[in-house]
């Protein structure tokens, strides 16, 4: 009997092949588009050939910039990563505190939850001038933009997750004599940390977005700065590798956080339905 499709699982090799397929198609589509445009206008910069992409990569990633004596890609990456990690760490720590008290304490929730909900709706880009004036144009404002951009989401998600916890667990902890503080520390926090990290994974995309936007406005080094700088020359041969590189970095973060979760919180995995 033929199995239902929902019960058919691809094997290892099949999975690899299927996973790569869309990327192969993408590369093919790009190559075709690029060739077509270059045929019409050999100087077209929008979809450069793989050869010029390679040249640009060699220039930015493997040779030192004669003016500054650094390899551009690495200098940019180091600067951006520092801002990103700082922003993520601060946002996560802040959200953990506010998300947990919001989820656990009805009085705090009544006060802060509507505020957080509303702040999460404010488009931070529109307030950039104010941000820059309050936090200066240096590293701080870039980190703050990331924090303002993702923390409200993290807080709301955490609050919702805590409210989804089976009420019995909190009752049970109380019957074992735990105080509010102990319940937070020993019941809520440990169960919420892995969820928070999952939420941070979902926030990686937005975090990069905010970082790039901040770097586009005020910076003299960074991945977003470089993209912005060469954008006015439509130097897609630099932009595309940078975008791929950013995506790759984000992906590495994502996978690292996932691994970290599975490693530090084994009880999460123990109960999962196999995929």
């Amino acid at each position, binding site marked *: 009997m033929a199995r239902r499709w929902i019960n058919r699982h691809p094997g290892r090799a099949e999975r690899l092949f299927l996973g790569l397929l869309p990327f192969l198609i993408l590369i093919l589509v790009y190559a075709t588009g690029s060739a077509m445009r270059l045929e019409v206008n050999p100087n077209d910069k929008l979809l450069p050939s793989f050869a010029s992409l390679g040249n640009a990569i060699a220039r930015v990633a493997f040779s030192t910039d*004669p*003016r500054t004596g650094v390899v551009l890609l690495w200098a940019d990456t180091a600067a951006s990563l520092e801002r990103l990690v700082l922003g993520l760490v601060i946002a996560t720590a802040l959200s953990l505190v506010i998300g947990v008290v919001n989820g656990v304490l009805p009085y705090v929730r009544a006060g802060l939850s509507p505020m957080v909900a509303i702040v999460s709706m404010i488009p931070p880009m529109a307030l950039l*001038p104010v941000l*820059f*004036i309050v936090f*200066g144009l240096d590293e701080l404002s870039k980190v703050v933009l990331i924090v303002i951009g993702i923390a409200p989401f993290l807080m709301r998600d955490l609050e919702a997750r805590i409210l989804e916890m089976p009420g019995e667990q909190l009752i049970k902890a109380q019957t074992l004599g735990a105080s509010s503080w102990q319940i937070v520390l020993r019941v809520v926090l440990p169960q919420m940390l892995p969820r928070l990290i999952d939420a941070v994974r979902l926030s990686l995309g937005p975090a990069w977005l905010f970082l790039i936007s901040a770097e586009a*406005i005020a910076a003299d080094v960074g991945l977003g700065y470089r993209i912005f700088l060469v954008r*006015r020359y439509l130097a897609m041969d630099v932009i595309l590798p940078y975008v791929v590189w950013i995506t790759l970095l984000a992906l590495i973060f994502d996978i690292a956080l996932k691994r970290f979760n599975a490693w530090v919180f084994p009880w999460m995995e123990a109960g999962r339905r196999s995929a």
Partner: protein
Amino acid sequence: AEKTDFKIAWTIYAGWMPWPYAQEHGIVKKWADKYGISIEFQQINDYVESINQYTAGKFDGVLVTNMDALTIPAAGGVDTSVVLVGDYSNGNDGVVLKGAKSLADIKGQKVNLVELSVSHYLLARGLDSIGLKESDVSTVNTSDADIVAAAASPDVTAVVAWNPQLAEIKKSPDMTEVFDSTKIPGEIMDLAVVNTETLKDNPKLGKALAGAWFETLALMARDDAEGKAAREEMAKLSGTDLPGYDAQLKTTYLYTDPKDAAAFTRSDDIVKYMDLVRSFSFEHNLLGEGAASKDVVGIAFPGGKVLGDAANVKLRFDDTYEQLAADGKL
């Protein structure tokens, strides 16, 4: 108040690249040291943001065009002095049409440009020159960073831009430049401005800036290896190469000689140009929504000439430092 540390915001633009070069090569420091002060040039990517930051008081000075100096800090009540008139756009701004030959073809088209910027001014002047009105076209506000890509988009037919974007746009074979700033020489100026109060309390700042500026200009104007090396570096800093940068310089009229700069600042032309600019600004509500006439913001020129409200002078063209440089008294 008297102080010793000053911050100036700069953005990438052909006529302003001498500043970061001067900073990196110690020319700024040399002159600042001479007057016992320190000057830091900080790069901002977003041009409007740099002016906003200056207006909000985060910087003592900024590199800006004449129109933006009038409409942003001056109209915002920040009394601003022009220390140096660095250059004027002499082809650096242009109107480009896709598949059309003359400016008259623009009628009825959608024009992509940075609204309320010098591009907008250029367009207005261009339309004016052939008897069209602004209402004969419709404008689409387009970010300067993305205007090259926008121009490549199939549904965009008319663009106003400045360099280096303009040069990129013109590279496309079906694009024709139909009007540019060589037709309105001197009207679009690139300035170094400083908060008037700060300058009054610290004239040393003006002297140091003028000294560093003209030394750097002299260096880059040289046709020898050193001059070329300087320009090459400026090219790198602005994200292009030497030929690209030289091409941009060609359409930028730099006042290399301080005497010329001082003379232009004192001329009647500049009053005429500023009157055109303030008329445009007023018509586009740039002098404040409540402004009753184009006279609300006063503009002062050397020799006591004033355009507009003399009791509310917020933009002052000051030839003192250019003249000191010309006289070799720095």
